[in-house]
């Protein structure tokens, strides 16, 4: 048997093959299929057009209300209604209703719906997030999702893998987001097109699951199919916490073949900010300090977890949000929101002048609950800053981690936390 990368191992195992090589086209069984309110309705229509009646196996389906909820308008309400009815008809247990839901990429891992070695598809581009726990997970479209519902499998082209070695101890105020923004700036937005990023190195090994989620989440921003991190003891401990007791260690074979190797030493990395309109436009925060901000958003599937809010809270507690700036805090799930309340952070955020929104994609996709007006500028901890992504086409969004976002909300302009404290 030839030596394989993590992605190759997972695809071989799910297609019943001894080994696979990049470029092979195959059908592989999937362990989970994720849909959301924004993508499921079209899939339901296509599923019916396919002449399908029952899904292959209802336990494969995960359906999450997150993008336009609580319903932003009548059409959005209809999208959720379609998905709700379908989940009911098909007997899908993993259906997440408003109030018990959250952003899908936090729901799936936290509800124990993915484990190392799994093959997952989702009709959402940031499905690559689950690489954080050693799964091969990738975004697909609505027709793909309908096909996977009907067949329990889907076509894949075996991707080649870029090995990314990240080494060095991070400085204060520098975190996973700064690392991944820096890596993407090296690769470019299409640097990993049709490929998988496999992350290694002591910096990654030292990260908790929240931080690894930030890393894997943004793999697609370099065009990658997925961003995988080998599963280790940290992964297994997390898996037990979420009720998965049969999770396994998984790594690439030592002599696996890589498309290329990218080595990044992050010991001297400064806090990073990606300028509009590409996530690959990362620069040291010092290059953009002073940029006035109308809105700061801390949340999303990239940085909406307890560790992210802890970073923000440490900097914000006892301070006030600048009078000309609005600060939105978006806990990714109900459980994360409860944690913010239990720790007293929720109150401190509100006291500082922030608004805490329900767990929604809302502002991240320019949908609702904080859309930008003409010419407005924001600093978001989200993952994309394309033209019109977050509101009016002339609005601008800078991307950063929670530390830069928190201090910038206080000053009303982009600020380097190293200088402020």
């Amino acid at each position: 048997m030839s030596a394989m990368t993590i992605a190759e191992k997972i695809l071989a195992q799910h297609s019943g093959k001894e080994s696979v090589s990049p470029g092979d086209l195959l059908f592989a069984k999937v362990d989970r299929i994720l849909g959301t309110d924004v993508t499921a309705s079209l899939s339901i229509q296509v599923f019916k057009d396919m002449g399908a009646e029952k899904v292959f196996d209802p336990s494969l389906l995960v359906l999450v209300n997150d993008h336009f909820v609580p319903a932003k308008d009548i059409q959005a309400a209809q999208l959720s209604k379609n998905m709700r009815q379908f989940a009911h008809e098909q007997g899908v247990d993993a259906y997440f209703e408003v109030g018990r839901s959250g952003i899908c990429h936090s729901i799936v891992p936290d509800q124990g719906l993915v484990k190392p070695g799994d093959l997952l598809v989702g009709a959402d581009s940031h499905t690559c997030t689950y690489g954080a726990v050693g799964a091969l997970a990738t975004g697909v479209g609505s027709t793909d999702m309908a096909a996977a519902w009907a067949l329990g499998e889907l076509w894949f082209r075996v991707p080649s893998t870029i090995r990314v070695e990240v080494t060095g101890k991070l400085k204060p105020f520098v975190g996973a987001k700064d690392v991944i923004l820096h890596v993407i700036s090296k690769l470019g937005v299409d640097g990993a097109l049709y490929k998988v990023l496999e992350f290694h190195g002591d910096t990654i090994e030292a990260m908790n699951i929240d931080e690894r989620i930030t890393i894997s989440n943004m793999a697609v921003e370099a065009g990658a199919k997925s961003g995988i991190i080998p599963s280790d003891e940290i992964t297994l401990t997390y898996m037990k916490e979420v009720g998965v007791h049969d999770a396994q260690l998984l790594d690439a074979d030592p002599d696996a073949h890589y498309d290329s190797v990218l080595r990044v030493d992050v010991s001297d990395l400064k806090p990073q900010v990606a300028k509009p309109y590409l996530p690959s436009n990362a620069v040291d925060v010092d290059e953009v300090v002073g940029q006035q901000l109308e809105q700061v958003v801390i949340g999303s599937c990239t940085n909406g977890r307890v560790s992210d809010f802890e970073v923000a809270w440490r900097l914000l507690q006892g301070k006030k949000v600048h009078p000309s700036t609005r600060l939105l805090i978006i806990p990714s799930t109900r459980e994360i929101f409860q944690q913010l309340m239990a720790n007293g952070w929720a109150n401190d955020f509100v006291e500082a002048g922030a608004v805490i929104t329900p767990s929604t994609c809302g502002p991240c996709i320019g949908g609702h609950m904080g859309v930008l007006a003409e010419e407005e500028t924001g600093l978001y901890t989200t993952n994309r800053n394309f033209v019109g992504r977050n509101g009016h086409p002339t609005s601008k969004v800078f991307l950063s981690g929670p530390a830069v976002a928190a201090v910038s909300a206080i000053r009303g302009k982009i600020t380097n936390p190293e200088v402020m404290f």
Partner: protein
Amino acid sequence: MEGTVFRYGDNIDTDVIIPARYCTEYTADKLAPHALEDLDRTFVQRVKDGDIIVAGKNFGCGSSRENAPIAIKGAGVACVIAESFARIFYRNSINIGLPILECPEAVQGSMEGDRLHIDIKTGEIENLTQSGHWKAVAFPEGIQEIISLGGLAAYVRARLNPVK
């Protein structure tokens, strides 16, 4: 097929192909009037059935929204030629039957307003305005099969109801 070129740059993302504000809709007739709205306000008025989008690298990057190729196809675009495609857009286009071709040379050799003649089966592209002739990267065999059936929905239908 033959059509007029609409020429765009690199990294045309799904947020400009069809902004999220329209993504509570998912049918071609509702999406098509907003195709490329945030990139080129006049596109929808100018485009005619059978026209061709020619763009740089990483066309269709960003979200997984299938609404993007549906909007383009619904607006009348018969084919997209790019230096490269973002992978979900590539899948979605194949799955919904929007012809796409990867051909950096044809992209370099074509300008806004040029007339192109395309043979989707062979991947041959001819520029009738500036005289140029290229061949796009061929699709792998398994994908050809899906395309020849008319998209993934037809493929699944055939698998679910095999002809006895």
